[in-house]
């Protein structure tokens, strides 16, 4: 892989103005906006060193870390809509690392660590609010799973413990922790470093940084074909009739990962399911913690704008439709009121759906494929956003060195043929 930050023309790296309170004041006093474009438009070149398909947090982070860590900057990120239009802009922005398996915990912990310093690293406030994350247990077996996760987490150095209903009540005064409910709360896995973040800001922050390194971000550019010669990728074709060549093509899509992989003939153990979310009108802050209930298929947090953001598990059947369902919001409202009965007069403002590529073992597929030069960073189920930074970092290393780094070694595509599945499925059904 050649280092290539030295291009002439539009691909060239540039200095961006820094964001700070002082620059804000300076721009506020000036006439009109003095801000530079955070990301620019370019005419696609005929050839790049690396083509990344998918302008979400995974694709943009991969571009950023290729440039930042490996000096590879001759990169095109191809996005069929606008940046962050897929899963990155549709998820509920919950971050955590309290997974079940050691490989999962290690991986997501690295992601949380990267997120903790992301605002400073990108000079873009991504508003990571480490307000704590709790996963409720409503029966013995889920309480046992919470203990299991807590013990694995502790051994990996991740702050995680099981707390009792009195402690839950202290953290979430609106919660009904009485024993008379249909699904009494027996305890919760509490994970203080978990929290929420401004998901769009993460996308924009990576895009701005990648752009500053000279990466070309092409929005409204859909890939319709990938060329392969002698089992090696040579480039892509786009909906507007272009052929762009590159020795490396990375599939960083969610929802469409099967379709992209089909273009090179690589089969995927993936099924695409819609995942729905919803948001209420704002009310004054009363919920300082992310609350998840696997049994009730519900998670809820309150944004800094005062809205409650809700999510659930994926829809019950595979589909590429993102129209959403009434079933989902009915169930959600019922379950939220089961947990916090005082909220019945709050109003649901909007619901939406994204697409999730589910794998058989609830773990991603990352690394090389049987086709040379074709890399995948897919199969992200309902946990892709959490893994954005670490995935970008690991995929960049994988591309730069031609082999997967240790931190993603367990997530290779070959594990399915070899029957070496990752054990995350043992955890609760809702992966948030």
């Amino acid at each position, binding site marked *: 892989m050649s280092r290539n930050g030295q291009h002439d023309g539009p691909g060239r790296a540039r200095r961006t103005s820094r964001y700070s309170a002082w620059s804000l004041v300076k721009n506020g006093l000036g006439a009109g906006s003095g801000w530079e*474009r955070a990301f620019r438009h370019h005419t696609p070149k005929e050839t790049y060193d690396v083509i990344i398909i998918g302008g979400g947090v995974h694709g943009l982070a991969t571009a950023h870390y290729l440039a930042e860590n490996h000096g590879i900057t001759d990169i095109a990120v191809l996005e069929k809509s606008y940046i962050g239009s897929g899963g990155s802009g549709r998820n509920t922005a919950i971050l955590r690392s309290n997974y079940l398996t050691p490989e999962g915990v290690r991986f997501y912990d690295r992601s949380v660590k990267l997120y*903790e310093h992301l605002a400073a690293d990108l000079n873009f406030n991504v*508003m990571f609010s480490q307000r704590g994350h709790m996963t409720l247990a409503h029966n013995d077996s889920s309480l046992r799973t919470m203990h299991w996760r*807590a013990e694995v987490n502790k051994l990996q150095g991740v702050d995680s413990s099981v707390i009792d209903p009195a402690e839950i009540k202290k953290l979430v005064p609106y919660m009904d922790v009485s024993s008379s409910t249909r699904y009494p709360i027996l305890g919760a896995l509490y994970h203080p470093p978990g929290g929420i973040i401004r998901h769009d800001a993460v996308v924009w922050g990576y895009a701005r940084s990648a752009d500053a390194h000279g990466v070309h971000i092409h929005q409204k550019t859909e890939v319709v074909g990938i060329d392969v010669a002698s089992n090696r990728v040579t480039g892509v074709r786009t909906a507007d009739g272009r052929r762009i060549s590159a020795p490396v093509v990375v599939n960083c899509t969610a929802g469409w990962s099967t379709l992209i992989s089909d273009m090179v003939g690589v089969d995927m153990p993936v099924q695409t399911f819609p995942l729905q979310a919803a948001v209420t009108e704002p009310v004054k802050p009363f919920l300082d913690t992310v609350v998840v209930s696997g049994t009730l298929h519900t998670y809820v947090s309150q944004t800094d704008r005062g809205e409650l953001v809700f999510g659930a598990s994926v829809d019950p059947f595979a589909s590429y439709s993102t*129209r959403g369902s009434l079933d989902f*919001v009915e169930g959600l409202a019922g379950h939220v009121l089961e947990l916090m009965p*005082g909220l*019945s007069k709050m109003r649901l403002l909007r619901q939406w759906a994204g697409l999730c590529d589910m794998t058989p073992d609830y773990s991603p597929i990352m690394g090389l494929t049987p086709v040379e030069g074709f890399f995948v960073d897919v199969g992200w189920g309902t946990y892709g956003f959490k893994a954005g930074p670490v995935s970008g970092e690991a995929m960049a290393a994988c591309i730069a060195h031609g082999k997967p780094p240790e931190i993603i070694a367990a997530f290779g595509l070959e594990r399915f043929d070899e029957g070496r599945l990752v054990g995350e499925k043992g955890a609760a059904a809702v992966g948030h």
Partner: protein
Amino acid sequence: MTRPGARRRAAADHRLGARPGEVIDRSRTIEFRWNGVTHTAHPGDTIASALAAAGVRMFARSYKYHRPRGLLTADIFDPGAILQVGDEPNVRAAHRLVEPGMDVRSQNTWPSLRYDVKAVNQLAGRFLATGFYYKTFIKPERLWPTYEKVLRQFVHAGEVPPDSEQPYFDKRYAHPDVLVAGGGPAGLAAALSAARAGARVMLVEQEHQLGGHLRWGDADDLRLRDELVAAVEAEAGIEVLTDSVVAARYDDNWLALVQRGLPHVAERLIKARAGTLVVAAGLIERPYVFAGNDLPGVMLSTAVRRLLNLYAVRPGRRAVVFTANPEGDAAAADLRAAGVDVVEVDARHGRTVVRATGRGGVEAVELSDGSRIEADLLVTAIGWTAPTSLLNMSGANPVYRPDAARFVPDPGATPDGVIAVGGIAGDGTREELVAHAEAAGREAAARASALAAVHAAGRPDGPAATPRPAEPVPALGLRHHPELFYATPTGGFVDMSEDVSAKDILTAVKEGYDSSELVKRYTTATMGPAQGKLETVNTVALVAHATGKTIAETGATTWRPMYTPITLGALAGRKFEPVRHSPVQPWHEAHKATPLIAGQWIRPEHYGDPAAEVRNVRAGVGIIDVTPIGKLDLQGPDVPKLLNLLYVNKWSKLGIGRVRYGVMCAEDGVVLDDGVTGRLAENHYLMSTTSSGAGTVWEWAENWLQTEHPEWQIHITPVTTAFASINVAGPKSRELLARLTDVDLDNTAFGYMNVRTGTIAGVDNCVLWRIGFTGELSYELHVPASYGLHVWEALMATGADLGIAPFGVEAQRILRLEKGHFIVGQDTDGLTKAYSAGLDRVVKLDKSDFAGKPELAWQAARGEYPMLVGLRPLDTSVIPEEASQIISDGGYIVGRITSSRLSPTLGHPICLGQVDAHLADPGTRLTVRLRNGSDTTVEVTAEHAHFDPEGERQRV
């Protein structure tokens, strides 16, 4: 805080004399409180109309800058009139009717609406511009949590008190042939013609009266309204719902309606499956963007006409009416008729308003020609937005028509089940709109009828149906309208709810956020309570301006559910959470059993002392209610084939009267379920499953039968609750049972792992299996369920002298752990294959086929799999908690404790655990990391069973 009722407000001085279309009942006066002051209203008044009648102009402070805000639209979408009513936040005060005693307060103002401290944000406004938070508070990192806390204080909303009341919400289904969303002239006409064509019609109107804009129109409008409403009310086939909203449309015309204003319940969610949806949502008037456009006193023409003609409220004394259409002209005429001085500024003649000025409200208006007019009211009538939400939800995105200056539905993209009528579809005279709606109503009825025929044909014995193709509804024309979106691209607010200015939009585009979607996300424009109904088109116009594209090229963002926000209570409705009880449950409750919730089942966990219950089973006799155990009645000559396929072990030679234990694996070799199956007669078997696996195993078996082996002659009937199941366990169980049954219980006549049928306590047709999950001599009785309580009570009474005691699920867990029996899902997990569960002797790889066989064959060949082992802590004072991890010297995880208890029988702790293959040999010592962080040592035992490993006690 003022004491409630301490101050009173003088009678309304802005109320006009009687108006022909007014909706208030002047014969009665009711009282309510506004920010602690008592006000009056007439029944029919909204909160906003009553306050406006009292001269209130300022209702709220804005989100970011805390600017004063007043009425803009005077309907449910009004961003300026969102208030707290009692414990209910964010009430739409221009929609909600006043009720006696209401406590209405402004939101997010301190110390008061008039003197709001955070209004200083206005001074800092130029620094709080769009995206400011992305650019600040970055360093030092440690201060961000503090900044965040401050930011959260600025949340612009009402509050939910922790002790909010929890009213009762209702839900129902409905199946109208035609559902009409919108009760204006087009909706009324469409409903009428559909009903007259034989359709069952549901007509839904968001406001409190039918009639739409006719209500505030001229005498002809009112006459037409009266005619249409009278006809609708006389039509039996139409169900009218007012103060109700079609909040969303989902696949196959599944519609979410919220019905409000009901007598017995707070709100009702109606889930309607409509044959045809007729969208008659009308048009929403679009605000104009100019400097000062958010001052109290700046209103839309429709707002002014609502206030004047529905509520008899004069909205000002001296008005400037900026008009580009006949509706604006009509507003000017209405104002004049109400005694208001009016200056008209006619956009059709090139004049525009560029600025409104004033402190706390409009005082003067500046025009494009530089002139300045003093006024306390500025009315704008510059164009319309088609609220196409329900069409967007149907997959039809609207298209922009510059000649009409609005987005209109794309009939080509609209599914057959959806038809748009009225203003949303196009323009025309009253008569043209009504005629179009009538044609649409007839076609809606015809399409619904054709769909019903298709559905009927799909039902058992349904009549054949010939599909009828949908016939097109003739299109409405579009009236020319000048394109007016903003005075200058830099002045005024685009989104009043979110405090997003036109300048913010331009800045966002300049910074690279140059599509409608990115602008929306970066500035939050259109993300507020009205979800873009007032804001989207103006935002798109500014993005188009800034990017040099047309509005059509720029395109609008997608409108998603909900049309208007609906309460969580309505969505939740009444709870349907099925629970299941055994017939013995009344006895358990009477005897103070601690309930255990196990999926849908409520079971006794224990009756006070589980350890004592264990000891009683080992020493005497105990009974446990195991009714939830799954039971399947299997009949037919091919049952052994099915058993051979489902279970990993062999079933061909099971004799009549015999019972066998079996384990099922999924196709990936992972343990799925276990249980025993007994052969009752030649072609009759009874299978048991785990209680949580009952449904899964039934469907799994049916799947094999229906999809892989339809030729097999087998009938499966679930009979889990046809029987009450009672396990009688302990050395004295035979003695007890002998007193109650005619079955010969002698060990030679009825040995271990046999099944018999007979009478128990006078109840015929009972099934008895002699099996032993507890490790003791035991009989599992399956009693016809209606007699379950009778047999249980008979056992308790008859066994009193034997020291009989009931035992619960916890004692059973301990008893089985002492015997080393694993529990599927606890001692196994989502990756545990049969050999890992120690089932080497059960799995028969020499069978030609069974579910999961290939994976198990490869597992056996490869070896090196985790193993379930018995574990005994060396320090008998330590009971390792379940889920404790087993670690290697280097701190790596090499296993975990899956089950752990103090054995009341043995007096020391016992465990089961999964460990890596090389650590599974008996005698291996392992380190367990306890929850408190300390370590303890356990030793792998020779067998899973800690007690009576030879199993002698159950065979006596």
